[in-house]
């Protein structure tokens, strides 16, 4: 078997194993919370008898391993259970919100990743000179602002000073693509500001690291211009570290943007999770937790694989 295929299979198998381990951790974490689901449902009206009855009907009187495997068995078939607070099917509720989450993340990623890499290349090209200082300074400033401050600043600027956008980003099923784009413009701007600096600085650092190599001197002595040297000779050798940072930021765009969702009243997965943590809706917390873990693990496997494929030593063994 080609070593690359072997590696891909290995990584995916490891990823699945990791996801299984994460599901145990999430299950145990939820178990450790004080009280249980029955208590959460009945609240203050709970009597010893009603609690026992409800536990019986929810299957909570079984031991933890049995419940875990039951839950796992259902989850594997796509059945994530019902939310306790409103009896909605969790898989259905998540499906729609996951779509919104991914839409926002993809919009932000499509702008932020190329922009960050381009800025990183320019900063590396003019290392230590003014374009580098300006780019580093501005991106550092945007990453230093807390997300909600950046969000309110952008809202003030683009709805009050220059009123071209709406301060809330409500999206509904049935909205057209461009309507949706218009609706998410503000949160996208904020998210781009938040993730730009990390990717840009890593690109710059990875390129500058490669620029120390002897083959860069070879390229300069061929008469290539500085930008040609960076683009043709430095970038192909800096792919792996850049990709790994890009992926961390993409994962963040999916799982870590609850503050921005709340500020813009954007109906997505993060807000859904936080709402149900507050309401002690444990099946929902479990389900969203697993989805977030799957996104993180999946994207990191992807980064690993791209890093491996970018290495000609692995692609073309001796």
């Amino acid at each position, binding site marked *: 078997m080609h070593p690359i295929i072997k590696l891909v299979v290995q990584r995916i198998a490891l990823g699945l194993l990791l996801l299984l381990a994460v599901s145990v951790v999430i299950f145990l974490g939820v178990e450790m919370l004080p009280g249980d689901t029955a208590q959460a449902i009945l609240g203050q009206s709970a009597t010893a008898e009603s609690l026992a009855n409800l536990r019986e009907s929810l299957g909570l009187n079984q031991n933890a391993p049995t419940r875990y495997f039951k839950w796992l068995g259902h989850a594997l078939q796509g059945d994530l259970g019902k939310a306790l607070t409103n009896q909605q099917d969790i898989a259905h509720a998540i499906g729609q919100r996951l779509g919104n989450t991914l839409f926002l993340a993809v919009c932000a990623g499509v702008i932020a990743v190329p922009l960050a890499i381009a800025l990183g290349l320019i900063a590396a090209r003019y290392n230590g000179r003014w374009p580098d200082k300006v780019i580093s300074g501005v991106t550092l400033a945007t990453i230093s602002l807390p997300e909600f401050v950046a969000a309110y600043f952008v809202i003030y600027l683009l709805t009050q000073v220059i009123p071209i956008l709406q301060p809330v980003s409500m999206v509904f099923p049935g909205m057209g693509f461009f309507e949706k784009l218009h609706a998410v413009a503000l949160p996208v701007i904020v998210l781009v500001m938040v993730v730009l600096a990390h990717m840009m600085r890593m690109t710059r650092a990875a390129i500058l690291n490669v620029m120390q190599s*002897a083959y860069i001197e*070879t390229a300069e*002595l061929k*008469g290539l*211009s500085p930008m040609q040297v960076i683009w043709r000779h430095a970038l192909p050798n800096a792919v792996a570290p850049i990709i790994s940072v890009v992926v961390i930021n993409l994962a963040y765009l999916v799982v870590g943007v609850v503050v921005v969702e709340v500020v813009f009243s954007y109906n997505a997965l993060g807000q859904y999770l936080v709402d149900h943590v507050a309401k002690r809706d444990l099946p929902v917390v479990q389900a969203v937790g697993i989805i977030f873990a799957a996104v993180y693990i999946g994207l990191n496997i992807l980064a690993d694989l791209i890093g491996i494929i970018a290495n000609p*030593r692995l692609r073309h063994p*001796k």
Partner: protein
Amino acid sequence: MADLLTIKNLRIEATAYPPGEAPKHLVLVDDVSVSVQKGRVLGLIGESGAGKSTIGLAAMSYGRGGVRLTGGQVLLNGRDIRTADASGLRSLRGREVTYVAQSAAAAFNPAKRLMAQVIETCLLHRLMTKEQAEARAVELFAKLGLPNPETFGQRYPHQVSGGQLQRAMTAMALCPKPDLVIFDEPTTALDVTTQIDVLAAIKEAIRDTGVAAIYITHDLAVVAQVADDILVLRHGKAVEYGATDQIISAPVQDYTQALVSVRSIDHAEKTDATPILRATGITARYRGTDFDVLQDITVDVAAGQTLAIVGESGSGKSTLARVITGLLPARAGQITFDGRTLSPDLATRSKDDLRQVQMIYQMADTAMNPRQTVGTIIGRPLEFYFGLKGEAKRARVQELLDQIEMGAGFENRYPAELSGGQKQRVCIARALAAKPKLILCDEVTSALDPLVADGILKLLLNLQAQEGVAYLFITHDLATVKAIADKIAVMYRGKVVRYGQKSDVLAPPFDDYTDLLLSSVPEMKTGWLESVLKTRKMASAGN
């Protein structure tokens, strides 16, 4: 005939920024004048730091790091390139002048196929179409003796050997049909048996294409084979400049005479004595591989004597040292030391067994902790093995520093403040501090200039006479072997192909490999290359 390149009164300066000190102003090259005519080869020779590479790169108006060309003229095809602007320089680099680096392995981009890199210059300067450039590259691959020239370019740098990469780099330099090629130590990193073939290929390519060249090396015997004229440099100044024949047969300056004279160490071979180390039937492989790097190796090191292990890279020399130290436990075979059997694995050896066998490495730089002083570095084994502390330790460190001929004051210095030779001396003192009966020396003089290396070898011989320590001396350099060995083992592809007293091993009749090895050592006379290529019995391996 008009000069292609004329360098007049060239001065090159740099500013160094030592941490915590005021910036230092350095003059790297001072008042050097030299010229190259069309189709001629100029050899630049000198020790490291003599300014050879700096002058070579000045012909492309290129300065590494903060190096600046501050005075004089560099006239290429009649115009002064010292004053050219960035775009003017880009248009001459790669088109009029090209460069072949010392380490082709590092100078090729690992992420791109060889063909793309070889023809890049031709396409960049729009000298030919892609098809023409590829056809020319294939032609050059064939001329330089590369295997399968049609498909060679489809490979990545890691897929070909060091010798092949060096030829590919030469092809890359010749592809755009430049007027001048700078060869910067193109064969220094190669094995002696590979060097001879690459040298011959380069020489032929220069002759066939009629290109002019500057050939930079520290090895006068090598440059004598290819150069028409030689400029000898020392500390950035020209020492002697003349035709090759005159420089090697009738040098005028003292320094040139010292370079030309063959090594002066005279070491009478000691006869066989009781072995201190006996390796019997050693077979070893690296974890996760299914190939025996060492196959049934049996050698002895006599107490107080030197066994030299000679061979090219990949022959298993250093692996043998790793097996003896226990870093790589052998799969089969036995190591006896001082009459008792050593455990194959380092982890299960006693502290005294560890003390008895010490190592000195090729790169003294990386073998020392840069944040420790010389005193701490040498003091560490004293503390570890003998429990010496305070005044007793300090006195012993001083004694060791005296033994390596580095007087007082050095114990407070850091490795970065020492020269290459001094660093290697400190490593020797550290090994000696453990009072070992055997020191494994792995290419300890390979990274040093010839005159400095001679000093180290003399020191090692003196220490052997004083302390009675035995050496297992690993090297690829036959001159070093002749200088220091009592016994010699020639290794080739994981096997010992010839083994015995020095006088026997170096006397005919030879086996094919030893003959190849001995005949590949460049001799300081013109025409040596051609004569030896005619009489070789065996093609060199691995290239």
